[in-house]
């Protein structure tokens, strides 16, 4: 941050991101009171949470400003491991529904 101006503009950016994150969180709270069924609500919540998290990682944690290699390393590795973990769901649904998917 060489100049005061660059400093001010990054402060501005942070505040924009901050407001966005809080707005998305607020949206989640609104959705929580709607009458959506379980899986619909879960899907919306997860998408919104992922957007929030992406904003935080990219701008609060500066991943956007880092070397692109780091971005891919972190996102692909974490994403892949978390993705691979999702397979257990099928058995969970089956305990309830008798079939390996949501009903």
């Amino acid at each position, binding site marked *: 941050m060489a100049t005061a101006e660059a400093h001010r503009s990054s402060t501005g950016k942070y505040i924009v991101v901050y407001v966005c994150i809080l707005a998305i969180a607020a949206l989640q709270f609104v959705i929580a009171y709607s009458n959506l069924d379980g899986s619909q609500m879960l899907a919306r919540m997860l998408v919104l949470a992922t957007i929030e998290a992406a904003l935080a990682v990219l701008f609060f944690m500066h991943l956007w400003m880092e070397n692109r290699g780091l971005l891919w390393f972190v996102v692909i590795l974490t994403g*892949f*491991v978390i993705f*691979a973990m999702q*397979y*257990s769901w*099928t*058995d969970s649904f*089956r*305990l309830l529904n008798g079939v*390996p998917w949501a009903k």
Partner: protein
Amino acid sequence: MHDVPVHHHAPPTSFLRKHVFSLDHKVIGKQYYGLALIAVFVGMILSWLMRIHLGWTNLAIPGLQLLSKSGAPGGIITPEYYLQLMTMHATIMVFFVLTTAPFAAFGNYFLPIQVGAEDMPFPHFNMMSFWVTFIGFVVLMSSFFVGDGPTLGGWTQYAPLSAVGAVSGPGQGTGVVLWATAIAIFCIGQLLGSLNFITTTLDMRTRGMSMWRLPFSAWAWFITSIMGLTAFAVLMPACILLILDHVAGTSFFVPGNLVINGQIQPHSGGSTLLWQHLFWFFGHPEVYIAIVPGMGIVSHVLTPNLRRPLLSHRVMVYSMGALAVLSYMVYGHHMFVSGMNPVSSLVFSFPTLVITIPSTIVVLIWMGSLYGAKLRINSPSLFALGFISMFITGGISGFFLAQPSIDIMLHATYFVVGHFHLVMGVAAMFGIFAGTYFWFPKMFGRMMNETLGKIHFWLSFVGAYCIFMPFHYLGIAGNVRRYPAFTDDYLQPLIPLHRFITVAAVLTGIAQFIFLYNLVHSRFWGKPAPENPWEATSLEWSTPSSPPPFDNFGGKLPTVYHDPHQYGVEGASADYVMQTSPEQIKSGHDEA
């Protein structure tokens, strides 16, 4: 260009800093190796006890009652105690030998040297990594002496029996809690280690050492540490949830209305399959954590003995990477018969068959490189060949197991035990041996005895096949694993085979004392090692002394000019060119 001097820091002088809480990666590597050495002999003696019990069920083993009065009254092992010994054998071997020796021990010692660094970036984490692992080992071993002994649940600790406490057998209360605590602690140690390995590889490479100039072993440790970073991070919370089921009355892994030993369990709502999902999500990457360093070591050991590069450096590295990626997608192949949804069996069967492709490519690269080569026969190269042989034999049974319809018959039989002992147990052990014979001159400045090494190899090689090949027949004959005795009619005819295996196991075990003798004797009285006994090119052979000085390269960092596989180079002054040699080569093998 000249070697760049680095800021010099003085080696420690106090005994504690030098030998106990050392920050030097070389000392930490040796500490890990020592831990693995103790663990492997404990594990081996446990396996003897098991084998003797399987061959001669009512034989009294004198003195065993001293270890556990209730487990071995009069020296005769009870069925429960058999299972307790088995669980400890497997846990010690998988975690404290196959993970620590090829990965943590050799990796710690040689990764920083091979990348040309003076140490790892976080020496304190590194020291903690070892001591935390050591505490894990102590906690695990303490379960022998607490309450009614160690857990009997097997290294996989399947729920619900692992989660309901003492009602499911001796050692299932405190024993399981100690087991899970030990493993959770172990995970922390390995996470700290992985952190150091990855940052060492990414950030500490000396001038000229591009990623593609790293030798195979460094690549293998790097890839393994990425697996370790994410796999141990999942096992740790799983163990903590298991502990909560014991100490806090939760029911993560226990369903409702469960009756065990005539008692209805005060649990409800949990899922036994959840444990298996969490465990195998770690468990399958773990088996590759055990084997990939071995692949790296074997490639690294073979190349200088072949006097020519392997067929392809890059394809080898890509294959090891592919193994790492696929290892996260196949874990369900351990659960084909668990009651998991049958569609999943199909889904997991496919990547399991796909993972055989990179495995096969790795093997083909070795075979193709061996074809027509004038291999130098010495202890390291023999053990490297042994590794390849075991990996192939054990891998082939994997093809069968990978298919759900066949696995229904083979699951939980000795066939599986044969499979993983060959492909993981013995293969990884041979990798450790190859590494030991190869690097001993660097670590201690003395050569190991070649004759003893070769005798050790042939006895171990023949012995391992005598022990583990018959396992496949036992399995096909329907011999279920984890049976403490063979009282059923259909198993009676198999008893002679079991006795043969027991004899082979005891003899092969005794042969390991040759190795121990060789190790200790050579450490003090071995022939002084020449500077570069294998005429190898990688950086560990460019250090000014053996063992290397405290800062590895003696107050400077080397500069790297070549790939690590410049062997049989035409027109060079020798038939090989060191990575640090500024010599220009006309027809080198530089891929980078």
